[in-house]
């Protein structure tokens, strides 16, 4: 279901990990090298989007609540 403008800005930003290889997608960071701007919601990624490293589909990602190591956010954004 599409989110309305209020829901988009009020929902916390999610962090997800690929269960095939450990690649991560962080909504706050996006993946600029893959054409995904910071703030791009997981729901707004195309249904046929797959892990750039191992090809795992979106359904094979899990939301995680794990913090970054020092400097980790920058590494995640450019992984």
């Amino acid at each position: 279901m599409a989110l309305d403008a209020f829901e988009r800005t009020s929902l916390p930003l999610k962090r997800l990990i690929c269960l095939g290889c450990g690649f991560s997608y962080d909504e706050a960071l996006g993946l600029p090298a893959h054409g995904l701007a910071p703030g791009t919601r997981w729901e707004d990624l195309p249904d046929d989007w797959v892990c750039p490293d191992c090809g795992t589909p979106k359904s094979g990602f899990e939301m995680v609540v794990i913090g970054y190591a020092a400097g980790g956010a920058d590494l995640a954004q450019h992984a």
Partner: protein
Amino acid sequence: MSDTASSQPQIGPRSFVLRAEERGHTLVRSQGPQSSYLAGHPEGFLTRESSFNFHEYQGGRPGFGPMRVFGDETFHGAGCGYNMHRHHNFIICAFVLQGELTHINTAGSRGMVDQLRQGDFYVFSAGSGGKHCELNVGQEELNVIYIWFLPSQLYLPPSFHRGFFDFRNRRNRIEQIVGEADGALPIPNDIRVSRLAADAGGKHVYKPSSPLHGTYVFVIDGGLRCGDTLLGRRDSSGVWGVDEIQCETVADATDALFVEVAMKDDEVVKNWERAHPGR
């Protein structure tokens, strides 16, 4: 699979039993598009018995605490294995049970080529990114247990450590081999792996760090009575909410792993349990 309770108390004895034949079975051949992933084209193939959901197998538990993969894998034939591929974040442990694992890893400034035999094991924390390749270059079949864990922090510096479990000198007691302990390999999360190689008739007690820690007991060989549950070869049980687990070996040459994890990150698993009452 059976479960002792259907509600979700954080504390209080909980357990499940997973029999060897209930695990997810996958066979991957090094043919077609899969041959870039799996080495040994054209005849190489690999079989994988998964305790938790992994790749094609999605019919079981999602995991246990931060453990997401427990794969009992057999590489059939010389040349079979996984070609060089990349990981992030996951902590990957391998325990070689039979045959020889040739492991090539990009960790460190020069990377490494390593060969591991029965009793050898490694802990590879992929962290900010690392590649590895795992091959059976010998004629004997290669049997390896692979365990993947989520880390305590994302994008840590990658690390690789290897160890050896001596079956002869570390016998008839539960020996911690991974996690904070003398001589154990370091791992970047609240995780301990112990191993028991024992003769029949021995009584052993495993004490997790707290009742909020779960222990996944996997019988590699032989037989182990765990509380009231008799576990045979490749059977396993997850237990949490207890101060200790009473075990008795019921066969000679019993070999078992005890994987202890913090259950606090278990929301995904709890959601699965709510959707699958009685399992």
